[in-house]
């Protein structure tokens, strides 16, 4: 029993990390139907920038805030310099642009920062909580809360505010969005800033657990993308559930079956889910009539 609980804790910790990345994907996707493959780099930038600002003597909270701000600015620049000039390009083109951006940002990070692995201290120490024989680090609770907070914020934004609707409208039909008076350029900038900030927040929260280096973005983007698709792209709730689910599958497979094939188990579950539910668990079917 205690071992099962331990697997669950492990799964939730890792899953919350995936969920945070997936939530970042959701924002840009909802504004532009583009999967931003540089999302992982936002997470990396959040973590790495915090490390370096912290090492320069700024208190951890200040460092984190600065790092998030910096990453959001980079998000805006990415939109302004690479996405906006490509207006009207197909979704595949935009994806390639984001892949280029991720290579670019990674290259830049290895020059501006370095190629070492880093971490900074956990927010509330490293003494684990002991719950029914299983242990959980305080930082894991931070990550879980972070994921929950980001989810609630996004959910409210997309369902309760007109601005949130305008974001969805921009992705659904850019032309129509412009015709009803939405400043689509602003919406895009906003969503890139928001998405980058969410990514950076994830980086800040998870670095004490996962450690960080200039190239962690690739794997995080991959897992986050998978999580977002499992949950149903575009739905914040799906991103949350998808992330946690993949974390749990990996942890229990590693615990009960084989650690060699825990990633495989996650992908098999994703494939089987999609075969039955082609829109993911909570994805919305796009409405197009003929």
């Amino acid at each position, binding site marked *: 029993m205690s071992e099962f609980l331990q697997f669950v804790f492990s799964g939730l910790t890792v899953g919350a990390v995936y969920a945070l990345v997936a939530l970042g994907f959701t924002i840009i996707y909802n504004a532009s139907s583009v999967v931003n493959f540089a999302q992982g780099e936002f997470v990396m930038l959040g973590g790495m920038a915090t490390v370096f600002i912290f090492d320069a003597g700024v208190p951890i909270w200040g460092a984190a805030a600065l790092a998030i701000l910096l990453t959001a600015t980079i998000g805006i620049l990415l939109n302004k310099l690479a996405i906006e000039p490509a207006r009207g390009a197909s979704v595949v083109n935009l994806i390639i642009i984001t892949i280029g951006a991720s290579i670019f940002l990674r290259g830049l990070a290895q020059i501006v920062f370095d190629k070492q692995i880093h971490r900074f201290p956990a927010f509330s120490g490293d003494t684990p909580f002991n719950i029914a024989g299983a242990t959980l680090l305080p930082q894991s609770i931070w990550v879980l809360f972070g994921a929950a907070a980001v989810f609630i914020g996004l959910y409210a934004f997309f369902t309760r505010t*007109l601005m949130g609707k305008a974001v969805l409208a921009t992705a659904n039909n850019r032309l129509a969005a412009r015709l009803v008076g939405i400043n689509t350029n602003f919406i895009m900038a906003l969503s890139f800033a928001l998405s980058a900030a969410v990514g950076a927040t994830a980086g800040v929260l998870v670095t004490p657990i996962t450690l960080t280096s200039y190239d962690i973005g690739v794997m995080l983007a991959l897992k986050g993308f998978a999580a977002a698709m499992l949950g149903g792209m575009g739905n914040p709730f799906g991103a949350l559930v998808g992330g946690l689910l993949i974390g749990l599958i990996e942890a229990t497979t590693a615990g009960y079956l084989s650690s060699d094939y825990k990633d495989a188990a996650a992908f098999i579950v994703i494939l089987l889910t999609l075969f039955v539910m082609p829109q993911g668990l909570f994805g919305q079917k796009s409405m197009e009539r003929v």
Partner: protein
Amino acid sequence: MLSVNGLRTRYGRIEVLHGIDLEVHSGEIVTLVGANGAGKTTLLRCLSGIQPVTEGTIHFRGDNITTAPSYARVKQGLVQAPEGRQIFTNLSVEENLRLGAYQYRDARVDKDLQEAFALFPILREKRNLPAGGLSGGQQQMLAIARALMGRPMCLLLDEPSLGLAPILVDQILETVKSLKELDVTVFVVEQNAFAALSIADRGYVMETGQILMAAPANDLLADDRVREAYLGV
């Protein structure tokens, strides 16, 4: 209200509007007729800032808006119900309508919403359903209602009767006429030229990217060339 001078535009290398001059006065209903591919839709796209202008100017209420972004034009009261409906298929009917009033956050939005529902009761029935599920004609109603939510000073309509049942065509024409009473200027592109000309003050005839004729609507209705080429009588 709206004046267009020497407007030219191109898709890639092919020029499709070769210097359009056109004037819409405040409170008028003006209609534009022309065959398939004449460039009517393209002209409206230019007016709304969706299609860049290569030469010429567009003035709206005295301001040069030739290069103004679309959202700024909507803010100034130049609103379009586009061809092909262009609704937000994944959003609900009500969300579509509320986005039509994106510029406004006041109480009048709710009032306008009720008016839109009164105009097209079917939309009230389907207010919470995704707009993509609507029938073709219902989507057309939504597109028009959404444009009205934007409180236009000048409304641009691209084939508003497309796909509408005859009884609704009557209603749309009535609505357009009633807009005139509210001091809304209307510029309407219509294939149903007879109907459009019968409610319009003036009309333009367009052919292969050029204005061929401009005259009071009644004169056009009586013109033999127009009757033969567009009214089919």
